[in-house]
């Protein structure tokens, strides 16, 4: 299944997956997945636990290699390439469990995240504090994710919500144009979630965004297309309204989650 009608030029897609398979031992986690994501669109991947949502992210971002199939970022093959190469081509991801530099301060986490894109690479002959553009960008990001008061706090000493904000901050810091967000609002309260969705929407404007999300309210607010993954197979790909009305989705998703999708997500909080 594809998100756009056949015949459209490949250049319109930020990301394409063709026949992607992934097995762990004898278990097929992802089966023959075809997925195309149009440039600038926002796709949410939903599905019951164990459907392979995070595995799809791992395959795209290079954390693991597909056993079969191909993945293109714009017009570059990226399947099986190392994570840092994929990032350099313009793809960035966040994690369900925050992956921060725990013993670095907030500002240093952000500085590390912007260095590559600003062309400083593995520089060891200039002081970090002297790199004006890096510091400006990191400070700007810090203001955007509202962590300015915690500038010099170590990442490990932040509250849970602050860590989630920093996780999102370093994900978008490099200016990648394809962004994968793995349950960005997991574990947040209702009010926090609402504010955070606003933040995501504001800071990823114009970018291609893929989100794995349990919370259907978040899905409806963030995504213009919803992909439903069940047992490693894509069973629906459509607008949120259409997906919600799809009887197959209702059966698969409700059967597993035992909650109406519109009732405000599963009971994380």
């Amino acid at each position, binding site marked *: 299944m594809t998100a756009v009608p056949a015949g459209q030029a490949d250049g319109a897609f930020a990301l394409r997956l063709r026949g992607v398979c992934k097995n762990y031992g004898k278990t097929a986690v992802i089966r023959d997945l075809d997925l195309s994501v149009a440039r600038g669109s926002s796709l949410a991947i939903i599905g019951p636990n164990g459907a392979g949502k995070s595995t799809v992210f791992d395959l795209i971002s290079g954390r693991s290699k597909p056993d079969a199939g191909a993945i293109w970022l714009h017009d570059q093959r990226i399947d099986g390439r190392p994570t840092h190469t994929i990032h350099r081509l313009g793809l960035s991801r966040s994690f369900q469990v925050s992956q921060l530099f725990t013993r670095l301060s907030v500002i240093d986490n952000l500085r*590390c995240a912007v260095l590559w894109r600003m062309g400083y690479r593995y520089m060891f002959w200039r002081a970090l504090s002297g790199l004006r553009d890096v510091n400006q960008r990191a400070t700007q990001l810090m203001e955007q994710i509202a962590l300015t008061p915690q500038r010099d706090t170590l990442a490990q000493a932040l509250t849970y919500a602050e860590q989630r904000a920093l996780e999102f901050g370093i994900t978008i810091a490099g200016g990648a144009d394809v962004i994968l967000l793995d349950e960005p609002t997991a574990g947040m309260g209702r009010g926090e979630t609402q504010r955070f969705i606003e933040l995501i929407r504001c800071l990823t404007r114009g970018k291609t965004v893929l989100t794995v999300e349990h919370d259907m309210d978040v899905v409806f607010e963030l995504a213009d297309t919803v992909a439903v993954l069940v047992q490693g197979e894509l069973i629906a790909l459509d607008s949120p309204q259409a997906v919600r009305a799809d009887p197959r989705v209702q059966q698969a998703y409700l059967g597993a989650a035992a909650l109406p999708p519109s009732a405000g997500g599963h009971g994380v909080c």
Partner: protein
Amino acid sequence: MTVTTRSWRQTALRAGPWWLYGAAWLLAPLFFPSSFSLGLLSQIGIGIIVCLSYNILLGQGGMLSFGHAVYSGAGAYLAIHTLRLLADGWPVPVVLVPLAGGLAAVLLALVLGWVSTRKAGMPFAMITLGIGELVWAIALMAPSVFGGEVGISADRDARPALGSWTLGPALHLYALVAVYTLACTGLMYGFTRTPLGRLLNAARDNPQRLGFLGFDPRMVRYLAFSIAGGFAGVSGALTALQVEVVGADMLSSQRAGTYLLFTVLGGTSVFAGPVVGAVLMVFALAVFSAWTQAWLLYLGLGFGLVVMFMPGGIAGWFAAGGLRRAGWQLRSRPLDSLLVVLAAWMAATGWVAMVEMAYRLQLRAVMGERVDFFFWQLQAASATSWLLCGAAAVCGMFALARLLRAPAAVAPSNAAMERRT
């Protein structure tokens, strides 16, 4: 970033520790002019360079290396061979020999580091251990180059070091070591403030995430490893200039273990930690070992205690406000604090005396039976001495355990401390 403009006074104050550090190196020869103490001071400088370089790996990069002596040893061997060539009439000033040693070590680290830094964590530690043993074995197999167990010797003052100035006198060598120590300390501190220095911390904390930010964590480790190897080479070359003989033990993993032990003792989380560690290293190896046969035992015990009760090392303890906490203790509960100190002293005295007596019983022929201990004279063969010391040790430990069991008496929480102050 809001770049705050600092006045020159603030800048000077912030650089305070550096002024002290520089002044200490400048003034030390005035207070310790004997060639023995100048030799010790030179050893301290050399130790500071190598421990700081080791901490680039351990503290800043989270890389536990058992093979760091390979690089200090490489610098030492290159230096000693260069000295021999210089004696044959090569027109190179001796003051540049440490630089050559550093360069050689960088080149070696660029080769061996490519293998070592493929992995982080435990595999890294094992690879460095393997390479360390390998290099040591090769050194023993090629005595013409490495001199075997005896080593290769050369004269540091066979040629002028710079102009007509030779390195012969201890003071001259000290001056050279001091200059190199200050320069290397400055450079390594500078390194911690560069992009690569910060990325190295990031690779320590979460290498996977660093990969998702465009950096290859392996390349970060590799470059840092080579830089650390280079500084180790400088220190090795200075060692060669000081002792004028280099043997295979310069490359041994036992030596690398010594770097590890004293770097941890000084503290890996603070830049100055390895400086503290290096001072302790020279005191332990050169001074303390002359006082008592049992110095390794005390060293092991002390190391264990520091690891258990000061997880950040000695410098880390100070940096985390340990002194302030201790002072607060003393002021708020002077009697309890005094009792704790007394009990600890009693237990330690008892144990130390028994250890000393046990050593004398073993080595009666060499050391005799008398133990001169503060104001007392103990006899290793006398039951009274043993009873007395045993009683002191047991009572002291018992009292200490009782005193420490009441937690409020000894260790108030930070929060409690904040409330009171």
